[in-house]
C-alpha cells in the first residue's frame, strides 16, 4: 500500500471540504476502499483518506414519524440485528445480514455499502493491469473476456460491470431516501456509472443518512441473494421485493451496472394474487429485456427464479 495522509473529520463540512479538491476519498469501514488501495487498481492514488467515523452523530438508527432514520456510518451488523428493521423492513435487515462476513459487517457501514465500487475482475485487477473504460481507457475487457459475473442487461456508458451492493435493491424496493450534505435523493435515483464511481454524488458530496418511509399497511418485503458460497461472496444475483396491497416493487442487483428495477415484473404482478403462476410470469417479465453476454446467460435464469421466489415469499399466507 502506498503512503497517504489520514485525517479525522470533525464534521460533515470538514469532510466535504477535504474532498473538494478531488484528491481525497472518504473512509468509514474501509472494507472496499482498503482492498482497492492494497491492490492499487486505479490509475491514480488518493493523497488523503478522510475518516468519517470521527464525525459525531453519523452512527444512529431510530424511528421518527412512522419511518426509520439510519446514519450513514451505521454498521451493517447493527442494521441486520435491529428488530424494527427485521419486522417492518425485512428486506433491508436480510440484505445487511447477507453482506460478506461477520467481520466485514462489523466494520462496514450503510454509507459505504451503497457507494462501493463495482465488481469486475478486469477493473479490480491489481496494478491497474486492465485500464478499462471506468478508468479512462477505451476498452471494456469483459466483452471479449471472461464475463460470467457481468451484466445481463447490457452496458451503461460501455461498462458491463455490475453493481454489487446487497443493500441497494432493498433500499429501492423499500422506496428509501438517501440524504447527502447537498440534497435528498430517492434511492431509485442514487446510482450511476461514472469514472470510476457508482453514484450520482458530486466530488464533495457525502451521504449522511438513509430514510425509510413508514411501512404501508400490510407491507411485506424480502431479500434473496444467490452466490456460490454462503459467506464472503458478492451476489451473482440478488433480489429485493416489497409489496403493499396489490402492488410490488421488485429490484435486482448484481445484474447490471446499476441496480435494476424490474418494472415489467412489477406490472406483471400488479393487481394479481401472488401465486406460483403469477410469480413465475413476473419472473419471466423481470428478465424480458435481458441481453446477457455469452458467459452471463445463466444469470438470466437465476434472476427469473429469484424474482419468483421472492414474490412467493411475501405472498399473503392463506
Amino acid at each position, binding site marked *: 500500500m502506498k503512503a497517504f495522509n489520514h485525517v479525522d473529520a470533525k464534521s460533515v463540512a470538514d469532510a466535504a471540504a477535504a474532498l473538494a479538491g478531488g484528491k481525497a476519498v472518504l473512509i468509514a469501514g474501509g472494507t472496499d476502499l482498503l482492498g482497492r488501495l492494497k491492490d492499487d487498481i486505479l490509475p491514480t492514488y488518493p493523497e488523503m483518506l478522510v475518516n468519517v467515523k470521527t464525525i459525531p452523530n453519523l452512527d444512529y438508527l431510530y424511528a421518527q414519524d412512522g419511518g426509520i432514520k439510519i446514519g450513514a456510518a451505521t454498521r451493517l451488523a447493527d442494521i441486520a440485528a435491529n428488530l424494527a428493521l427485521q419486522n417492518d423492513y425485512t428486506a433491508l435487515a436480510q440484505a445487511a445480514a447477507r453482506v460478506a462476513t461477520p467481520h466485514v459487517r462489523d466494520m462496514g457501514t450503510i454509507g459505504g455499502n451503497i457507494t462501493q465500487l463495482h465488481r469486475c*475482475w478486469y477493473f479490480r*485487477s*491489481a496494478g491497474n493491469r486492465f485500464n478499462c473504460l471506468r478508468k479512462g481507457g477505451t476498452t471494456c475487457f469483459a466483452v471479449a473476456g471472461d464475463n460470467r459475473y457481468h451484466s445481463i442487461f447490457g452496458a451503461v456508458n460501455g461498462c458491463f460491470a455490475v453493481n454489487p451492493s446487497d443493500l441497494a435493491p432493498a433500499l429501492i424496493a423499500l422506496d428509501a431516501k438517501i440524504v447527502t450534505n447537498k440534497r435528498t435523493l430517492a434511492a431509485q435515483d442514487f446510482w450511476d456509472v461514472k469514472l470510476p464511481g457508482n453514484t450520482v454524488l458530486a466530488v464533495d458530496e457525502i451521504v449522511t443518512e438513509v430514510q425509510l418511509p413508514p411501512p404501508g399497511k400490510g407491507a411485506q418485503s424480502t431479500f434473496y441473494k*444467490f452466490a*456460490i*458460497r454462503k459467506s*464472503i461472496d458478492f451476489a451473482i444475483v440478488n433480489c429485493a421485493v416489497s409489496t403493499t396491497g396489490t402492488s410490488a416493487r421488485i429490484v435486482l442487483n448484481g445484474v447490471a451496472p446499476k441496480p435494476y428495477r424490474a418494472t415489467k415484473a412489477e406490472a406483471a404482478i400488479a393487481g394479481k394474487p401472488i401465486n406460483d403462476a403469477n410469480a413465475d410470469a413476473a419472473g419471466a417479465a423481470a428478465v424480458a429485456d435481458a441481453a446477457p453476454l455469452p458467459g452471463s446467460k445463466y444469470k438470466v*435464469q*437465476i434472476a427469473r*427464479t429469484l424474482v419468483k421466489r421472492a414474490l412467493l415469499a411475501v405472498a399473503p399466507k392463506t
Partner: protein
Amino acid sequence: MPDYGPSGDRKDFKYIGGNTIGALSLSIAKGYPKFPQDIVVPNMLHGKFLRSPYAHARIKSIDITKAKALPGVVAVLKWDDPALKPFQGTTNSVLDDEADKWDQEVGAVVVAETEELCDQALALIQVEWDVLPFYLDPLDSMKSGAAILQPKRDPKSNTTFINWTQGDIEAGFKEADQILEFDFNESMTTAFHPNPAVGVAWIEGDEYGPGGQTMIMHGGATNGANPMASNQYTRAWGWTGDQFRYPNMWQGGRYCDFGTRRSTTIAPILAKLTGRPVRLIQSRQNQFDCTNVPIRHLHFKIGLKNDGRITAVYDTMIGEAGTRGSAALGQNGDLKYNPFYTTLCKNLKTDGTISATNTSTVQFGQPHPFVWHNMTLALHKIAEKLGMDPIDVALKNIHGNANSSGPLGPDKVILANMTGQDDAAPQPSLVAAIQAAKKLYDWQWPKPNTKKLADGRMHGISFHFGMCPRHGETYYSMFAYINQDGRVIMPLRGPWRGIYTEDICRMAVAEEVGIDPKDVVLKYDTNAFTHMIGGGSDAGTGSTYWARECGVKLKAAILERAAPMLQNNLNNPPAGTTPPATPYKLTPADLDTKDGTVFLKADPTKTIAFSALLSQGVLAAVAAGKPPPSAWMTTQGRVTDLMDAIFCEVAVDTETGAVEISKWVLAADVGKVMRLRSLEGQVEQSMIINTGYGLGEEWVFDKATGVLLNPNLIDYKKPTMLDRTPVDMTFLESRAGNGAYGGGGISHNIASTTLVTCAVWNAIGVWIDPPITPDKVLKALGKA
C-alpha cells in the same frame, strides 16, 4: 488380517486412541507463534521483484538508472548481476530475463528503506519487452508447431510422455461384452496457503563459529527449514553449512507445495550484499503462484462384462506441466499408483502426455491424489452403463487381501511382485467399511434424475472407495531423553506446517515410557536432527513406528537404570527405618513405569521417580529408520489392506443451478486410531478440499492476455466455514497398517475431484466437469 506394525496386537492403551491437547495448536490458540510475515527487525530493508505483466515475455532491454537514483533505494540488481549468477540454473533461477507466467518475478529486484520506495523504484525501471506466445492449456502447447516454452530443458518439444502397461490390454477388450468410453476434465486449483511466502535474512556475528558470522534465515524452504537448502549458498560463497540458521518454525498449513519461493532464496543474497536485514514478502496476488491440481484432460476406455466386471482399462491423460521450476514435467511417477490394481482386472494401460504451459508453477506434479478419482468416476460410469449400484460395481471388481506369496511371513515384508489380483474373495476391510458407512446413512441407490426432495431440489448420491496410501516411506529420526524434572524431552526440527504428526509421536512415546503425553515435551530446535514429518500427512502414522521404538528403548534404559537404584534404596532405607528381612534383588523385569515413576510390580508402592534416575547420568534413546513398507506403496494396490468408503449426498436446484452438499459419510479402516482429534481433522480437511474442488475452486485466466483474473479469496472460491458440510464418520481398527500398533493413515485417497461430479450426475442425470458451478449446471440442463 496381517499384523504389520510392532505391538500390533497390543490391547491396553492408556493414551493412544484418545486425545491430547495439541502442543502446537495450543500455541496458536494462545497467539504465541511468529510466522515469517511477523518477523520485523531493526534496520531492516525491504525488497521487491519486478514482475511480469505478460504471461510469457523476455526482456529486450532494461534501464535501472532512475530506480537506482531514487533516494532511499539501496540496491537494484538485474538478473545478470554477479551476485545472482551463482544462483541461476538451467530450468529455474533466482532471477532471469524471461517470465513464463504472468506476475512472475523477472529482470530485477529492488532493495529500499520501505516497501513503498520499492514500488516507486520498480515504476522507474524502464523495460522493453519481447512478448512471446503463451499457452494456458496443454492441449494447445502440445500441438505440432507450438512455440517452445522451455528451450533450455528441451529445445524441440514442450511435452514428455509416460506410460505403464500390465497384462494384455487388447485381450481384455476382446473379452469384454461392452466397451465404455468417456472423458473427464479437471480445472486448475490453487495450492494457496494463508501465510504469505516471506524471506527475511540477516547476518549476525558468531564468536564461536569458524566463519565469524551466521546468516539468519526466516521463511526457509517451504517444505521445511532444511539445512540442505543452504548448499547453494555454501557453494557460492564458500561458507560452511553451520553458518546458516533457520529459526523460523511457523510456516502455516499448506498442501503438497514443495517449492521454494524466490523471495526466500534471494533474501540472504541481498542481506549479504547490503549488510542489513532484508525482507521480501509476497502479496496476496503473488501467493497464487502454485497449483495444487493442474489442468488435466482424461479419456477412459473400459472393457466390461455384462455383470459389471472390468476386463480392461486404458486411460490416457493430457496434463499440464506448468512453468519452469515446476515439479511435474517428467516426474509423474504417482501415475503408476493405479487404483485399478485393486481390482481383479489385470489388463491395464496408462498413457500420460504432460506439456508445459504458462499458467503456474506446478509443484504438485502428480495427478489427483493417487488417481483415485479415476476409480470413482469409473464406478459410476459403469453403474450408468449397466444400471447398477456403484457399490455393487466396486464389490464385483475389487480383489481380496490375500496375495500371491500367501500369508505374510513373520518379517511382514511386502514384496513388490506380490499380487492379490487373483483373489476373488471379498476384501474384508472394504466390506466392513461399506457396512459401517451404511449404518450411518440409509444408502438407497436411486436411478439418476429420479429422486426429488420435498423442497423441489433433486437428490443425488455417490460412492468412493479407496486404500490408504500411508506413504511414509522416508527415514524418520526420533530422540528422547529424560529431563531434570522427570519429563521426557523430544528435540525436534521444524518447521510447523499444519501436520500434527508430532502429537501422535509423543503419544506413542508416552504410551511406551509410561508418562502422561503432556509431560512429553516437543522441544523445537532448528539444529536438531530429529524430525517427524515426511511424505505427507498420511505419513504421520509411519513416523509413529519409530517414535514407539524410541519410547521402547527409553523405557528399557529407564528400567535398566532403575533396577539397581531402587534395589539400593529399598535395601538401605533411611535411618530409623527397618531394612527388608530379605534384601531385594531386582532386575528390569521386576519393574514397570507409570506416570513418570518406576514401580515395583510386586509392590507398586515401591517407586523411584524418573528424575531421580538422572543422578547417574543422562537417560536417552535414539531410534531411526523407515517404517515397514506399506502394501499401497510397494504394490500400488495389487495387495490390499486398509480400505475406506465415502458417501456424498447432494441436492441440486435445477432452477438456479445451485448444488449443495448435504452430507458426507465416511467409514475408514485406519488400522488403529492414534489421536482421534487429528484423525477427524484430516477427514474434515479432505472433505473441505472435495467441496472446493467440486463446487467452486478454479483458476480463471483472461484468455487474451494470460492474466489470472481471480488471484484473491473473493473471486477464487475456496469454501468458507459456512460451506462446510457435516461429516458423519466412523473408524474401524483392523490393526493392519505399517505404523505403530498397526496404525495406518488417511487423507490423500479420500480427497476426490469426482465424488461431487458423480453425485450431481445421480441427481440430474448429466455429467459436469468440476467445479460444478451454477452456469455449468444450467447449461447442462438447457437453461442457459
